[in-house]
């Protein structure tokens, strides 16, 4: 959900009913990208189709490089971006995984590539539906990640993405849910090109690959220097918050919409807070409203920016909250939901923190319904949790555990079931 800004510049933007994938294409077009290289994969295909048509029709003055794989797509963009042009690609799931080596390279080479990533489950079993496992497996590559909630936000975040990436000289991926966004049509305001041009001036790289002045790019770096370079990457992302907030704020001034890095909802006096991301947030808001109507003090915190992780904002908004549940449409096997891990890590060294429970739901495109969210909120409000000081200074006994038989069902207490029968896991037992 965006915040409308009063001082938005007056313009007469075009409104179109677009599928999320086409909102991506329009975003890239408005940013006047110069090189596009991509390989089609469900559910991202229409992104590439429309961009190739825009190039063919001359609506977008860009070189479209068809390739034989996602690895090559990113490699082509690395080469192109090194010469100092704005570049774009889109992929999903196994495509992203095949790209993995080049994903690291793009970040290490400090190239401000922007990519649309359609969240899709990873096989086997073969599955083309929404799941955050693909993008989150690229968590530590150096790419910024923005999880969006609506088709308008898709388009707007692509534009913001270049502003941020080119300021920090780090790549950014805009992550949208398969089908819930990629194939769903929504009214989208297409900003005026001149305003986008004003917001996003042509890319002027600090250093470019130029045959007239040849240098070695990406060559050997000895131990004496490698760490410093890695430090610079970490530093760029650790201090990114003002840059991203400014990009979002300026966007709001020009276009009338800004999104924040995280978005609090009915948090002020909330005792239990559900942390969400992406499209599940919309469903969660309506359930929060219902619980509030019943007098239950629940609130919501949406995480939009996953990398760099907005630790400061998480601490501020979750300060003093008694119970925190994290909804994860992903699973970090052996450790639980990934957003939950991140929230826990952010709060770990913060004294005024509540317990964090992690709820795994909606894997492989299973719908996260109001009933699902209700079941999670009820569990969050009611579950018995160890109280502080309960152990009286003694380390805990290791709970008895029997190895799980293949094909076994979760033992009692590991999962809850929503009223409409959908299974929800508790990622790691509290």
């Amino acid at each position: 959900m965006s915040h409308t800004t009063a001082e938005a510049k007056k313009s007469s933007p075009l409104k179109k009913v677009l599928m999320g994938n086409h909102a991506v294409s329009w975003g890239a077009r408005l940013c006047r990208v110069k090189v596009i290289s991509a390989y089609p994969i469900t559910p991202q295909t229409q992104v590439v189709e429309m961009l190739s048509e825009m190039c063919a029709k001359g609506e977008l003055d860009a070189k479209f490089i068809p390739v034989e794989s996602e690895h090559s797509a990113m490699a082509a963009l690395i080469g192109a971006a090194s010469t100092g042009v704005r570049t774009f690609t889109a992929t999903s799931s196994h495509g992203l995984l095949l790209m993995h080596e080049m994903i690291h390279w793009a970040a290490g080479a400090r190239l401000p590539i922007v990519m649309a990533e359609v969240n899709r489950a990873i096989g086997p079993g073969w599955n083309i539906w929404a799941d955050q496992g693909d993008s989150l497996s690229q968590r530590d590559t150096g790419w910024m990640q923005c999880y969006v909630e609506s088709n308008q936000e898709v388009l707007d975040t692509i534009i913001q993405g270049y502003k941020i990436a080119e300021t920090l000289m780090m790549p950014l991926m805009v992550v949208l849910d398969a089908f819930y966004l990629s194939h769903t049509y929504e009214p989208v305001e297409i900003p005026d090109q001149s305003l986008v041009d004003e917001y996003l001036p042509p890319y002027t790289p600090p250093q470019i690959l130029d045959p007239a002045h040849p240098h070695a790019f990406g060559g050997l770096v000895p131990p004496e220097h490698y760490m410093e370079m890695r430090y610079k990457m970490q530093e760029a992302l650790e201090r990114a918050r003002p840059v991203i907030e400014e990009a979002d704020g300026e966007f709001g001034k020009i276009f009338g919409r800004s999104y924040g890095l995280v978005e609090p909802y009915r948090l002020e006096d909330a005792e239990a807070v559900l942390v969400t991301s992406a499209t599940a947030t919309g469903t969660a808001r309506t359930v929060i409203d219902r619980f509030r109507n019943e007098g239950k003090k629940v609130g919501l915190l949406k995480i939009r920016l996953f990398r760099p992780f907005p630790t400061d904002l998480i601490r501020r908004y979750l300060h003093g909250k008694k119970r925190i549940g994290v909804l994860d449409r992903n699973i970090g096997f052996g450790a639980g939901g990934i957003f939950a891990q991140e929230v826990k890590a952010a709060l770990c060294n913060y004294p005024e923190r509540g317990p964090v429970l992690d709820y795994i739901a909606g894997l492989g495109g299973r719908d996260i319904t109001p009933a699902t969210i209700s079941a999670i909120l009820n569990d969050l409000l009611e579950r018995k949790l160890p109280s502080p000081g309960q152990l009286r200074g003694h380390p805990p006994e290791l709970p008895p555990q029997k190895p799980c038989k293949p094909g076994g069902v979760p033992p009692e207490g590991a999962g809850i079931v929503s009223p409409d029968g959908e299974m929800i896991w508790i990622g790691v037992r509290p």
Partner: protein
Amino acid sequence: MIHFSSRDKMPSFALSLGTTLVNKTGTWRYVRPLYRNLLPPCQEGCPAGEPVQGYLDLVRREAYRQAWELLVQANPFPAVCGRVCYHPCETACNRHFFDSSVKIHHLERFLGDLALEKGWELPPPSASKEAAFGKEIPGASREIAIVGSGPAGLSCAYFLARLGYRLTVFEALSAPGGMLASGIPEYRLPKEVLSGEISRLSLMGVKIVTGARFGKDLSLEDLGRFQAVFLAPGAPLAPPLQIPGEEGEGVLSGLDFLDQVNLPRGASPLQAPAAGSMPGHSQVLVIGGGNTAMDCARSARRLGAQVTVVYRKTRSQMPAIGEEVEDALQEGVTLLESTIPLRILREEGRVVALECKSLLTGEASTLPADLIVTAIGQSPDLSFLPGGAGSLKGLSIDQQGRVLDEDKGGAPRDPQGLLLESRTGSRPGSRPPFFAGGDAALSIPRRVVDAIASGKRGALGIYQLLESRESASESGPPGLTVAEYSFLNTVYFAKTPPTPLQRIAMEERLKSFREIERGYALQAAGQEALRCFSCGVCNSCDNCWLFCPDTAIARTPEGYVIAYDYCKGCGVCVRECPRGAMTMEEELNSGGAWLKEEMR
């Protein structure tokens, strides 16, 4: 180890501080790419050596005048050849392995017609370089005589004029052009096209004297004042069928028939004031299977007759151009294959029928006829030769066009030792050297473009003799390999059908001698020129430049330059050249200069 005074001084990513130009990766190489243009097969296939690829490339770039100027360096009559040539260039065109040959003759005609329409003139012979021969023009202005104003004679005159010589062409008939004027009907070659191209020679200063038959109006002595003579009297004699009934009215040689057809409108006994009626001749038989036979058959159709062509072999063996045969059949000409004439039947002296025999069945048949046209070959009229050499089948000439003494085994004794002298048995000191070409020469195929080529060879021979130059090669620069289809990387080409010429409707065709094909418009020409593969010749497509992984190829106004200091010899450029204009060369075997330098 590089030490940085602070972390801020370090680049933010792995980037060499200095230039990488110090790293001369060319030392890794043992083979190297080279730009090496080959001879396109079309040019090799053209007897006149037309630089087809070159002028097509210029058409593609809409540099029409340059294209024409390049074309006429090899052939003075593109508007003529574009219409009547049997286009061996298209037979040789590599594109026929891919989809179908480039319509080179249509493009040749396009340029020829455009030049006539625009009235383009040739650059004056005083131009410092004469690219037709790649030599300076001779300083002295000498006079040369040409006997015969057909394609061979005029071609020789043209090339010598371009070299700066003064030319006089003697023509036996009342108008210049030889067989082009008398032997080709208007629907294939309009008169104004021919006269237009010939008049360009007059503008160059070539003097054409008509009504001057060698041996009658013009004697050997008359030619004594010239520095050289080129004989191109043609082959105007038609051999008899040698069957009974041949003598008398109603039997015409093909050449005589066409000569009458080609007379100015109304002046021919065959012609009524307009085409469409041929008084007294409703059933015409044409005997023969060459282009002359087709011309006669199709002309007779236009004059309103029913026409049957009688040929002794099968259609596929006919020497006529395939398209001509096809057109004749379309126009309603009947073809009787594997049939030989036995005798001509007459009633009261008038031809009524031809008796003939099928070689397949051995059966005889009688074909009604009131005009029989024989087109079974031609031979030269050498009665001008002193000592009477009328029985000779043709003049023997060597590769330079010099007339040889048949009695001496065909070898030239010396530049002056020629047939004409030995036959006369005398040796006047002032006699100029004789060269020959065209249909009268034994070794020249009797086709327009071969005649043009022989004129060009004669001009070159005369030039070499008079200016004491070394002999040059026949067609194209020496030692060039022909670019074969297998040398091309056809991945880069898309199948494209040829651009057709528009034709007038069939019913219109038979009503008049109007030319049946309309030439290309600018757009169609450009479209067809784009189909040229440019076999073996770099046309600056940039593929090598784009593909070089080491950016070791530079684009300069003079062409591509390979930086061998950095080229690793990977060969990607050669592989990706669509036209085979690059090659790899092993360096150790070809000098290995860099290696010696490295080792020093």
